[in-house]
């Protein structure tokens, strides 16, 4: 019908938004091609439409646009990207345009980047343990295939190193399967992207990695569309082609900032710290695009990375993320400063899917109780340390001293490992028992008598 109607000249430009008046009836969320005076094509979508005016958000930003010569072509469809297997291994911009000088992908199939919500009845519950070779994760915060498990980090911490290590080492024990990686960069520096590319190259998986890059130098609004393009492609790989897809998204904090920017410009009522009230739903529309489906071989596992402003876990970005994802790996500055790698915080980290996916026949029978015991005992260490800082170590009871020893050993031996050290789950669990040996047996009330009899070395 009204396909491809074009307007020359617009009414107003407000930040990344352009406003047009006296148009034909334009659809909400309709895709718009914006052409600047030099013939460069930008993409946008309609945020608000009425008989009076239409508001279009331009992803590449509005720099260089003018009122008179800007053209807007309304496409009568939502923003779509092509999906084809040939896109694997390639590099795209934040809006899905090729950056690798190879031609624009051709496909008969185009998909709406917003996707559709997965029907809960079509899902199947993720249960397969992924061995990352990292004790703090495998032992205490197990990653499951199809899980969305973010890394909560802080500026200057080693989240990239850890994410790279996980990508290198992640495997399902005893299984070889088709896997693919989708790497999404949002507002990160070029060197971060290169660090990952180098890593993928070194571990020989680069041809399985598809990248969507919206770097720090790119317009910020573009980031809003980048993860959507990437997840649309990931869904295609996983649910149509049967791949196990690992999606790394970094940095979600930049994404949220872009959302805040648009919201502020539109004059919406701000929620906490100026972020829009719908930040939760918006983030959910990304994070929920993960998991496993009943009638499909593939899966999408998400590893989003975010940096917590001021290391504050109650900041809206980590807070709302934690409310949506299935746990979180929290990195701790204190451990980092003491030279412990990976500095995975012992207590606030959590994997919600581990409960049904570890134990007898899955990892090892003692795993659930052992993990619970390590958490409990380490929590006690934190209390004793707090106490020691008040009354001095000399005043502590003998038992308290044993806890301090355990804590030290837990951090130095169990948590710590080399960036290239790949521990099997057995090694991880044995290490857990080894550090527990600093404690008297009576203290281990999360473990059964049989487990203690069988594994305890104290």
């Amino acid at each position, binding site marked *: 019908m009204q396909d491809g109607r074009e307007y020359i000249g617009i009414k107003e430009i407000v930040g990344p938004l352009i406003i047009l008046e006296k148009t034909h009836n334009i659809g909400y969320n309709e895709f718009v091609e914006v052409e600047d005076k030099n013939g460069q094509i930008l993409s946008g979508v309609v945020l608000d439409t009425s008989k009076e005016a239409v508001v279009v958000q331009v992803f590449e930003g509005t720099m260089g646009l003018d009122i008179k010569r800007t053209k807007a072509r309304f496409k009568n469809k939502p923003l779509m990207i092509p999906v084809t297997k040939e896109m694997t291994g390639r590099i795209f911009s934040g809006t899905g345009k090729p950056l690798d000088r190879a031609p624009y992908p051709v496909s008969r199939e185009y998909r*709406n980047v917003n996707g559709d919500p997965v029907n809960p009845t079509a899902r199947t519950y993720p249960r397969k343990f992924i061995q990352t070779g990292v004790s703090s994760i495998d032992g205490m915060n197990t990653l499951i295939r199809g899980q969305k498990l973010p890394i909560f980090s802080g500026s200057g911490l080693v989240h990239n190193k850890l994410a790279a290590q996980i990508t290198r080492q992640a495997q399902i024990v005893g299984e070889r399967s088709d896997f693919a990686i989708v790497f999404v960069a949002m507002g990160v520096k070029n060197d971060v992207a290169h660090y990952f590319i180098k890593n993928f190259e070194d571990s020989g998986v680069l041809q399985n990695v598809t990248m969507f890059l919206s770097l720090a130098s790119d317009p910020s609004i573009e980031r809003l569309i980048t993860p959507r393009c990437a997840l649309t492609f990931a869904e295609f790989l996983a649910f149509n082609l049967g791949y196990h897809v690992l999606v790394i998204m970094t940095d979600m904090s930049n994404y949220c900032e872009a959302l805040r920017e648009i919201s502020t410009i539109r004059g919406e009522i701000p929620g906490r710290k100026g972020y829009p009230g719908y930040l939760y739903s918006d983030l959910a529309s990304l994070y929920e695009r993960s998991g496993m489906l009943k009638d499909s071989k593939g899966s999408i596992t998400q590893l989003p990375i975010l940096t917590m402003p001021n290391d504050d876990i109650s900041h809206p970005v980590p807070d709302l993320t934690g409310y949506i994802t299935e746990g979180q790996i929290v990195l701790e500055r204190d451990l980092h400063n003491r030279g412990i790698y990976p500095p995975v915080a012992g207590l606030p980290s959590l994997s919600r899917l581990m409960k049904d996916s570890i134990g007898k026949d899955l990892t090892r029978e003692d795993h659930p109780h052992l993990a619970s015991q390590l958490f409990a005992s380490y929590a006690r260490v934190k209390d004793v340390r707090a106490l020691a800082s008040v009354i001095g170590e000399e005043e502590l009871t003998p038992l308290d001293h044993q806890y301090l020893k355990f804590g030290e050993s837990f951090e130095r031996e169990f948590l710590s490992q080399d960036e290239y050290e790949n521990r099997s789950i057995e090694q991880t669990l044995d290490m857990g028992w080894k550090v527990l040996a600093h404690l008297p047996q009576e203290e281990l009330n999360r473990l059964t008598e049989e487990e203690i009899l069988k594994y305890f070395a104290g």
Partner: protein
Amino acid sequence: MKKENIIGKVRRVNGPVVMGEVITSCNMLDTAQVGEEHLIGEIVKIEDAIITIQVYEDTTLIRPDDPIYGIGMPLSVELGPGLLGNIFDGIQRPLEDIQKIHQFFIKRGTQLPALDRKKKWSFAPLVKKGENVKPGTVLGTVQETKIITHRIILPSPLQGKIKDIKKGEFTVEETIARVETETGTEEISMLQKWPIRKPRPVRDRVPATAPLITGQRVIDTLFPVAKGGCCAVPGGFGTGKTLVQQQLAKWSNADIIVYIGCGERGNEMTDVLLSFPELKDPASDLPLMNRTILIANTSNMPVAAREASIYTGITIAEYYRDMGYDVAVMADSTSRWAEALRELSGRMEEMPAEEGFPPYLATRLAEFYERAGKMNTLSGQNGSVTIIGAVSPPGGDFSEPVTQHTKRFIRTFWALDRHLANERHYPAISWIDSYSEYLDTIGKWWDENIDPQWSLFRSQIMELLQKEVRLQQVIKLVGADALPDSQKFIVESCRMFKNAFLQQNAFDQIDMYSTVKRQLFMLKIIVRFYQHGAELLKRGFTLLQIKELDVYKKILRMKFNYSNDELDKYETLLQQVERMLS
């Protein structure tokens, strides 16, 4: 369904909020359908000739001048046999049927009836020709699932005389009876509709006296909720709200469970869907799905339908209450519902109150929790709706508006504590910040039905826990060694109570569910152990000597070692404790 006609045309689209110009008159809160795909919505505002519609589906490509259809009735749910064991979205579309059509994803514009139109149900009448019937009269029954008998009740406001009534196999739409009323003959089928925002009528509210038994010790023993009561579970992310709700959905002694996943994870609904058909209800020994209805409007589904989902759920709950059942509604999470309200209000450019929430947030919360209660229904039987609402405060800070307003309308409060969750002390229900205002009545129930000493033991342990809080403050300043043995023993006994009693692993086969008798034994054992231990200390024993007693170790492991069926072992252990002094 009344015939639809064009009532207006679209003027503006802003996300799920659509404004339209009125062509023919329409009513506030009527259902409207937008565009050629007939996207379902509800008229939430009428001002001059402009209507505002909140649309329950994605409004992509809806444009000015698109038609708006009216169907002349408010947003309603379908009520009748076939609800149990089913899963619906926020506006009661059957998700399993949608999957059959669209496979993985939920596509918009799908219109399917909530209840299966082809399935035949065996209807057995309870009234005879010529009998006088009025709203609430049970016309007959259908065995809906193995455990639930569905009572077909004459809907209000009908009354009159039965002209004829049939027995046999019918679909939900077929006529089962005809009633002669003052205005003519009415055909009655098993299918009824009810507007979701309107509470179903009852005769009377009656006092809620019996506890909802949940099998969770910290709940049943310390902070019980009454059948027909209201309860909130607030907690930061990952503190265990969903797990508590799932535990209750599994083990509580309600007859019917309505589980509303309101703006939460898809996988959690899948988890329930996959595990409930496998799990056995402790009372009937039949799969839990036989008594469960799921409403799933997950976080990535349209936000307006999330707003509707809790009303859909509570209306279905009231319907089963009216049959005389005790229904428990789990709403996870009411904060996501409040956020949906906030988003819609913002898009309608209403004046915000605290933190952007609309000024009517408190009223809406009150209206929702008001729909709980133990009622004398129109059929004369008592039934109840218990509401357990999860609250997800931003940053885990309970001073925010949703938690604060909710607190005004609920009477049991299970405060989830981040510190406990971090230690993996589950359920992370704080024994300091939680409370139950039902204790007086429920205490009587325990004393009369289980053991006359229940209230006594409960208050003794609560007193000990309070003492321990103060002692912990002292320890933080000077260390435990500075305390006398008698006080150290209080700390030790409380630690024992926390480990051996309060902590209850939802995944432990023996411990996930505790019968009331077992709970009582465990409580008594620990309290008596403390009392005798304190006496031994007075007699000159040391703390170490007490900790080396055989009973000490046995108590710490009793929850793993002795199951619900092995009450004799608890009895033996209690006797052993009673002999500590000799």
